[in-house]
């Protein structure tokens, strides 16, 4: 479905997007942002689930099972720690 040059275009545009989105980030947010981007690649969970669906032999199923466990850890852990860090940032003005 996605092949050849379409895939290349997606790759190029996404690469520039990532670069631009981060390029003006203040240093104070480096750690939470790294953690946040760490969460975003937790989308690997979706791929691990698909791989699990495709697995047939016991070996493949075992590897896919480990993959899903790890991917779920990436997604959930990434979200929890990022959210914890960011909810602490507040301004001296106003209540929020």
């Amino acid at each position, binding site marked *: 479905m996605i092949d050849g040059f379409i895939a290349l275009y997606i790759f190029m545009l996404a690469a520039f997007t990532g670069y631009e*989105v981060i390029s003006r980030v*203040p240093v104070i947010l480096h750690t939470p*942002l790294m*953690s946040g981007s760490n969460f975003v690649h937790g989308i690997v969970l979706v791929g691990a689930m698909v791989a699990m669906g*495709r697995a047939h032999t016991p070996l493949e199923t075992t590897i*896919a099972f480990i993959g899903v*466990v790890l991917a779920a850890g990436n997604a959930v852990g990434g979200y929890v720690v990022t959210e914890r860090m960011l909810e602490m940032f507040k301004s001296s003005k106003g209540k929020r």
Partner: protein
Amino acid sequence: MPIIGANTLIQASYFIAAALFILGLKRMSSPVTARGGIVAAGIGMAVATLITLLSPDMGNYVLLTVAIAIGGGIAWLTGRRVAMTDMPQMIALYNGMGGGAAGAIAAVELFSSGAHGFAQLTLGVLGGVIGAVSFTGSLIAFAKLQGLIKRSVRFRGQNIVNLAILVLVVAHGALIVAHGGGTAPAIAALFGLALLLGLTMTLPIGGADMPVVISLYNALTGLAVAFEGFVLDNAAMIIAGTVVGSAGTLLTQLMAKAMNRGLGNVLFSGFGESAPAGAETGPAGSMKPIEVADVAVMLGFSEKVIVVPGYGMAVAQAQHKVWELCQALIARGVAVKFAIHPVAGRMPGHMNVLLAEAGVPYDLIYDEGEINAEFETADVALVIGANDVVNPSARNDKSSPIYGMPILNADKAKNVIVIKRGQGAGFSGIENALFYLDNTHMLYGDGQAKAAELVQAVKAL
């Protein structure tokens, strides 16, 4: 037949997820909107995951649920409990898990011959190798920062060994691609070598350089996820992985620059914790001790105080008391600002998280570029648990190992107070010329205890 097919629904959910990830990352780049950013990205993830369950070729529902419950459950518990000071290694751990998952996907596709054609096979192998390297590399980074591995393992010719393993991995991967797939032992050997490479690459790197390494592995995991996305025809993985790959690369460069370390240096020289060579003569002058009462008077009758916190403050758990002290000063009409060096804490931005935890508003916190010019107008620079980042030798002593590193100009303030446990040199073992200046006074003792005493003394003024 339903109006919208399952496949269309899945593609639509991936489209929404990709858009929310980019929006989320964008919002995370400003402190005002950052909280909403992670929530947006989280919604995208939840939508994509739930809809994928509807996928026509989904199977093994029981195993799937068990796996998600185990991985997600453990991560949720550990993520909730971890102390803010230990955040860097947790990020490394979760990142390693993502890399391992990408490796697992590649392994399943290779074993089941799911990847077809030159491009898919190449990207599948490449993503799998990168994911496996990121997996073991991140685990080592975690173990080092957690204190499970105390020493860096180094031996002569280490770079050559690493290079040899790398060449082997590449050659072996190329063979598998050329044959249009591999036998089970061949595939197992490929992943074995890649996992080994992650170990041998990361073991020699010192703890101080770990943040840069973690950031690099974060970018690599993103790339691996993107490559596996090509294999699985999954646009959400391609976009999210690529965005993280490029953003992570930029973040890695920014961090390396802030730490005054070239990326090549970090990966291949293993300086991270080596003591500086040659015992040069110490700075002239002497360190002058000062008492709490005198410091309280000095602070209480200042117009402007700049606090320079370092990781030592966080280790002493003094940030709450320091903020209490600052509140007492603000109540007296003193202007208080926090100056944060990019590498204060264990990774850039870590100190901001620790201060935020203590309740310090982010608009009182300034980074080195914003505040350096202000030290000249400050009555007192209060240095707590920071050392190398305020060492003027980085500016004017060419023989110093940290020469050229951007520092906070605390020495330019009218008075400098340094709260420090003892007289010894800091984390890097480098003598600090700041401590010997005429306008510097040393308040010896535990950061938390001294800050608490200062709070009482200032309130009593």
